[in-house]
């Protein structure tokens, strides 16, 4: 099915039957085989397939990835009706699974819309009775609920036959100029999604807020924080329903970014509210932490296991059981906290506070009316300088905490650069800095993660040892801990080089020039 292509809408108050008569008067038509079809569309919450120009479609016992533009199948397989939540790994091994996994990775597919289509196909014939253009009259309906069927505007789809481009142009002119058809704005899929009240292309967790340099800092901070609050809200249902791990991850990133904004731009908020909301957001971060850690463990388990000799890989099964059991408990606590009255109140009061921030008196908010370009630049320069100083002080003998502290500063800097640096400064300056920072943070993060993983594995030892197969599992875990330790040391060894490029003379000069003017 051509999902966008060249779709035309019939003129107002023209029924499909009228349209066929009008077409027949102008063109030599031959009706071909019509079709009744039912299509179910799926995508991730954030529309990863839509973004890649694809749709996951299930039709008459076949699941396939199809191009949104041409309708061509990229990969497909016979499959039962997909469930309400489908991971790429749950499909049969094959090209469809591979193609899907490459795009959606750890995200789950969820039902998007169910569309019924009645199609009448026509060939436009030339003097030799050869088909030179193909037309299809498409009447589609979408199910807004299992019982509520909404008809979409009928469309006439026009497709060229290769080698007959002149005939195609002629028929297009007839349809548009003489018969009054107009080009459809979006695809049938997008129209169907809109009809159900959802957003074509899914719900993004990107921040993308436009700022100007001389905007008041409190207004800039509020608009970023409002967007982050939206991201938290939109990810909450999927987080609670445990659709996939990205809901929790995106939620936590939004919380962390919000905290960084409050911490770095303290002077735009009234002290009392600042203290309260910082504490509340810190709590959100804390109650979601254990679940996220265990998510990462379960997601990375295969990779972790792959680090073991083939013969002892199955020995780790008891560990996976412990991880899953702990994850269930952690999630239960997290969901309870997210549903609590306290969390509910925060969800109402936080956006309300943000929306009135600019109207509050500026006493006690020394930075409120300062231009955001100046304030953010000041903070970016300050943290960058601090990181350079901290990093230089790190030696081979420094304790792991020194790297950990540096990483925390790095996170603040990264959020400032992404939230304020990119919208206010040229990308060719900010992006290389973000890249150098990311590369440093990856190394620091790996160092920290390994340390935490080793400690966590050690903490599981008692529980694992009581399970059947526990002794073998403990030995396998010992090997893992050894590998993790090696990787931690490797990350530590990488640090000097990564830091040098982040703190190079040229980079320092560029930061000063860009952000402290």
């Amino acid at each position: 099915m051509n999902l966008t292509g060249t779709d035309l809408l019939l003129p107002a108050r023209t029924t499909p039957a009228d349209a066929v008569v009008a077409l027949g008067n102008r063109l030599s038509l031959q009706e071909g085989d019509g079709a009744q079809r039912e299509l179910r569309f799926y995508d991730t919450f954030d529309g990863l397939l839509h973004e890649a120009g694809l749709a996951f479609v299930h039709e008459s016992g076949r699941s396939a990835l199809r191009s949104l533009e041409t309708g061509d199948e990229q990969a497909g397989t016979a499959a039962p009706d997909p469930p309400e939540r489908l991971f790429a790994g749950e499909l049969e091994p094959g090209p469809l699974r591979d193609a899907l996994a490459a795009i959606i990775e750890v995200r789950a597919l969820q039902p998007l819309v169910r569309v019924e289509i009645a199609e009448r196909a026509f060939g436009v014939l030339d003097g030799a009775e050869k088909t030179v253009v193909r037309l299809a009259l498409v009447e589609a309906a979408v199910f807004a609920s299992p019982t509520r069927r909404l008809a979409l505007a009928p469309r006439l789809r026009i497709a060229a036959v290769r080698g007959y481009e002149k005939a195609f142009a002629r028929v297009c002119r007839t349809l548009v100029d003489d018969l009054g058809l107009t080009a459809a704005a979006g695809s049938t899929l997008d129209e169907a999604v809109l009809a159900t009240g959802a957003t074509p292309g899914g719900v993004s967790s990107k921040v993308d807020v436009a700022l100007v340099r001389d905007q008041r800092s409190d207004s800039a901070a509020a608009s970023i924080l409002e967007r982050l609050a939206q991201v938290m809200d939109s990810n909450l249902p999927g987080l609670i329903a445990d659709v996939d791990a990205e809901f929790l991850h995106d939620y936590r990133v939004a919380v962390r970014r919000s905290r960084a904004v409050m911490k770095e731009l303290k002077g735009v908020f009234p002290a009392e509210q600042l203290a309260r909301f910082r504490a509340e957001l810190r709590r959100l971060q804390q109650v979601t932490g254990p679940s996220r850690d265990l998510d990462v463990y379960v997601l990375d388990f295969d990779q972790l296991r792959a680090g073991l000799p083939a013969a002892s890989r199955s020995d780790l099964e008891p560990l996976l059981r412990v991880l899953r059991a702990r994850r269930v408990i952690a999630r239960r606590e997290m969901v309870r906290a997210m549903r609590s009255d306290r969390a509910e109140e925060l969800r109402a009061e936080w956006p309300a506070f943000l929306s009135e921030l600019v109207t509050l008196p500026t006493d006690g908010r020394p930075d409120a009316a300062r231009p955001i370009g100046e304030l953010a630049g000041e903070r970016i320069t300050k943290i960058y300088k601090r990181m350079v100083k901290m990093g230089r002080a790190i030696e081979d003998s420094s304790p792991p905490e020194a790297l950990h502290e540096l990483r925390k500063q790095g996170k603040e800097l990264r959020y400032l650069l992404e939230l304020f640096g990119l919208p206010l400064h040229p990308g060719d300056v900010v992006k290389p800095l973000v890249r150098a920072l990311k590369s440093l943070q990856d190394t620091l993060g790996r160092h920290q993660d390994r340390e935490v993983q080793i400690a966590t594995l050690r903490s599981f030892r008692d529980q694992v040892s009581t399970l059947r197969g526990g002794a073998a599992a403990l030995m396998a875990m010992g090997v893992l801990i050894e590998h993790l330790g090696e990787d931690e040391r490797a990350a530590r060894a990488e640090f000097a080089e990564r830091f040098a490029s982040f703190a190079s003379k040229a980079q320092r000069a560029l930061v000063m020039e860009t952000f402290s003017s």
Partner: protein
Amino acid sequence: MSRVLATYNIKGGVGKTSAAVNLAYLAARGGATTLLWDLDPQGASTYLFRVRPKVRGGVRKLVRRKSDVEDLIKGTDHERLDLLPADFSYRHMDLALDAAKHSTDRLARVLEPLRGQYEYIFLDCPPSISLVSENVFEAADALLVPIIPATLSSRTFEQLEELVHGGPQVLAFFSMVEVRKSLHREVMAKLRATHVTMLGAAIPSADEVERMGVERTVVAEIAPAGRAAIAYEALWWDVRRRLTARG
């Protein structure tokens, strides 16, 4: 990458065009993007698809790749099935090939830019042993060889196997079969016993095959439930199975 399948026989009038047209139609109907190149200057398959037998620049420019082959392709009445039409200048294809460098792989080179676009490319070849057929052997992954089960057919088969030795896979099938003739039955039994590459499906001599020229379409549209339509479906299934078996 596409599979290139050529319907070929040294002899004429054995059902090559009919096989090329009907198999290409079935390939496209099954969801595969398919191209049929009508190499025969008589242009029978071009006529069946109601396309004008005209190739801008003629055969000389085409084999020297001076014309863009993509611009010469015409869509047919059937979705996913395109045609590279015949042209009267194809009667001099041998001369054009002979005059060009690399004279035995010119056709393969012409097809090169199309190999990513089509899952199947069918070549409907003129009957002969010539530079054209050498080019076809070079370009094709498999030869689909229609054989009329009459006296000399066994000899034809052996000649052909010798001719393409080491080249494309040879998949022969019986064509224009009249099961009431005992000679046909005897020859079929004998060849099937001695030649493992002989396909199981056999195309009957049927009214609807002859009517293709009048109605200018494929047998599946003339008599969808007829013997010939069913035989072509069986043949296509068999061909695909053999191709897959070979990897």
